[in-house]
């Protein structure tokens, strides 16, 4: 029988009597895997983490770690007995202890089963907090506090590490570097981790799997690649801000027809009967610029994004379509000018709803 390391089954999460997320099921197969939960703020991601940590109860479903039930409608193991560490989004350092004392407090937990000892010095070095060890929490910045809190959680070498927006207060310039180091460290130490974030790029980079939480539900739980390329619902498309949905009619095994853009070819990821009316996901990188093309659309907006431009084009039926153009492209088109689109349009994976 396939036994998961960590498992949430049909759990509904509540806080203060208000339903936040219903009927959630997901699992972590192997010890050491990292999963990310992604969703807009206030959706209940933190509630899920708090319930897993034992700070909130669940009334339906179950939460299991290493085969042992931690929470269900009958059982609720005290947070201190779970060996799960949660690093809060807001500063939760002990204000009357120095940074070093705070980190060392994390060490008290006895962990007989662990093979590899975590080196506190390594954590300190990685998170770049060596210089502030003798400072008190009120003397350090929000970003530093977040890193210290992370260090404290890592030092306690938990069976399961929960990180609530771990890098939200970290400077942008430092963020990517920390993401790389964090991933490496978690992998090296084989610490199973659930990360909550609203930053999809962070989730795609760090997570072995990603869960998308929208409208009180776990909408999709899959590999980052699949979540990105094969979003399973319109809500996920909208949340990830992946492109626009245009009306189209299925015309064959590998083709669709749109009134304004004509024939679009590619591989359907789901089969549709010929003649079905669908909504096609059109992403900025799906269309190519071609001055020679006879399909010309009017430019209504142009955004400069450093490495590229995003043109917004208007079709005859007033659809607004985004198109990617490399910023080294020889010539530019001004607003109100006509812009040619290469035909026939080819899309690798056709995602329809």
């Amino acid at each position, binding site marked *: 029988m396939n036994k998961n390391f960590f498992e949430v089954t049909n759990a509904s999460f509540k806080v203060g009597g208000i339903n936040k997320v219903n009927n959630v099921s997901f699992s972590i197969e192997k010890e050491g895997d990292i999963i990310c939960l992604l969703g807009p703020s206030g959706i209940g991601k933190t509630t899920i983490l708090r319930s897993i*940590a*034992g*700070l*909130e*109860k669940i009334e339906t479903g179950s939460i299991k770690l290493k085969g042992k039930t931690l929470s269900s409608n009958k059982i*609720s193991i*005290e*947070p*201190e*007995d*779970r*060996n*799960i*560490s*949660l690093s*809060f989004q*807001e*500063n*939760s*350092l*002990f*204000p*009357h*202890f120095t940074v070093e004392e705070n980190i060392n*407090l*994390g060490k*008290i*937990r006895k962990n007989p089963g662990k093979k590899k000892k975590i080196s506190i010095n390594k954590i300190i070095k990685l998170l770049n907090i060596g210089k502030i060890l003798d400072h008190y929490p009120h003397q350090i910045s929000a970003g530093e506090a977040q890193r210290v*809190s992370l260090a*404290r*959680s890592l030092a*306690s070498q938990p069976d399961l590490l929960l990180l609530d927006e771990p890098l939200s207060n970290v400077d942008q310039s430092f963020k990517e570097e920390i993401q790389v180091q964090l991933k490496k460290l978690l992998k090296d130490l084989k610490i199973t981790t659930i990360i909550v974030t609203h930053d999809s790029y962070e989730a795609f980079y760090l997570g072995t799997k990603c869960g998308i939480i929208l409208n009180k539900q776990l909408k999709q739980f899959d590999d980052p690649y699949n979540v990105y390329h094969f979003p399973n619902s319109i809500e996920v498309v909208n949340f990830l801000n992946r492109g626009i949905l245009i009306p189209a009619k299925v015309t064959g095994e590998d083709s669709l027809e749109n009134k304004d853009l004509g024939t679009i070819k590619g591989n359907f990821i789901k089969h549709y009967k010929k003649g079905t009316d669908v909504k096609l996901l059109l992403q900025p990188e799906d269309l190519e610029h071609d001055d020679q093309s006879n399909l010309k659309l009017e430019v209504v907006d142009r955004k400069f994004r450093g490495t590229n431009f995003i043109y917004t084009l208007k079709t005859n039926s007033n659809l607004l379509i985004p198109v990617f153009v490399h910023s080294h492209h020889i010539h530019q088109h001004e607003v109100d000018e006509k812009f040619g689109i290469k035909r026939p349009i080819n899309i690798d994976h056709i995602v329809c709803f």
Partner: protein
Amino acid sequence: MIKKFNIWYLSSFLISFIVVIPIITVFTSFFEDTSNYFEILKKTFFLEYVFNSLTLLIGVLFLTFILGVGSAYIVSFYHFPGANFFKWALILSFAVPPYIYAYSLFAFFENYGTAFTILKNVFGDGNYNKHIPKFDGMFGLILSISFSLFAYVYILARSSFLYQSQSLIELGKNLGFSKFKSFYSIILPSARPAIVAGLSLVAMETLAEFGAVDFFSVNTLTTGIYNAWIAFDDLAFANRISFFLLIFIFILFLTENLSRRKAKYHLEAKGGFKKKEKIKLYGSKSFFAFMFCFILFFLSFLFPLSQMLYWTIKFPENLNGLQITDLLLNTLYLVSLSSLVLITFALISNYGNRVSNKKILNFLSTLSISGYAIPGVILAIAFITFIAWFDESIIKTLGFLSIKKIFIGSILGLVVVYFVRFYSLAFNGIKSGYEKINISVDESAYLLGYSKSKTFLNIHIPYLRNSILFVIILISLEIIRELPITLILRPFNFETFATTAYISASEDLLEAAAVPSLCLIVIASFFILFTSKYILRDNNE
């Protein structure tokens, strides 16, 4: 998870309940025998009590407002020689309880008193007595209480002024307001909640004041209660007057609570906080500012201190037979025992409230901290009433030996009533420390494997160290000055500085009251100096 019935919940429930008992006692005894209370009102001096209490209240509120707000305004907004000294020196007035101020006031202006001696020494013999004003009765009482209590208004108004956004004052300048207009239209209204809170404290203390009122023989509700009990041995009547006084005080308490809520709201708006540059005063303005503060400091602290010192030196024979060491040890014994009990229970109760988060517990704690608003006289008498009832109707019925002796006229009884009276000080002091600990700190501790008890002992107690110290000193200061509870409930032959001073004064041996009064002022000043940095927090801590 955390919301489960546990030992913490149970203990905080019990603690709060004990504190609420005396309040319930007063209310129930009022309804015990309602047939003749109109008679009592008519026959006695009840109306005089009410009239005097109101006159006293209005007089004291007026004077403390002028003194407290005036001095707070000057030291917060202006820089002049001695400003930094007066900032904390003005709170030394707390070391002089109203009754000791009353003794000093009387001693200085009485016939052939200190003023007479000074005039005689300066101008030679003469009939000065008829030219020396007499400060006794209601007027002397108002002065005594005001000089002793104005610091409540001073401290709260000053902290509010300090937090006032500089931009608010600059706005006044922009609008072309004069200094006077700025003060009236901007500074004063925005400090209003703090000032009202300070005045409410003064009002509660004034209504509860016993020593000075008794000394000047002004009949107020509080002395009426005491007299009903001591002179007529009529507990029921004492309880009845208590009931009226309690209603009076509950109205004040509500006002204070409501305005305090606003004050908190007010302080949270920290966005525009800028460290204020004080305005430097020159010439005559600087001189007036200095003189205002100096005279206030002189009258509120130096004057009673020197009067008591003068008498101690002038009548050294009073030192004989006075067991100063015993008095000191007794005072310190009460202080340390009560502090220990209060701090322990306040900590447990606060933590219980924090981890169980039950509505009933919140309600009970709110009610239990109202003990501070109830005059010591009422508490002591309610306590005696309750013990007597409990002894008669429960203990004796069950066939046990009387417990009266264990609680009345014993250290235990004294500590229990101090506990009820000062529980709100301890509870609120610890609570304000706790409010600064984010709940995620507790949760982090659990997640690091700390149990609830371990979190309390290893994480919270070290954090609350400063709050605990501050509360201990506040309690000590109150107990050193406390008079009516100690007077009514102390064991036979057990005296403190306060009771010795009171007894000497009530036997018309005012000179003999000087030594214990002086000791009391000195010890209290020592405690105040120790806490001044907490009371006068200048930065955004």
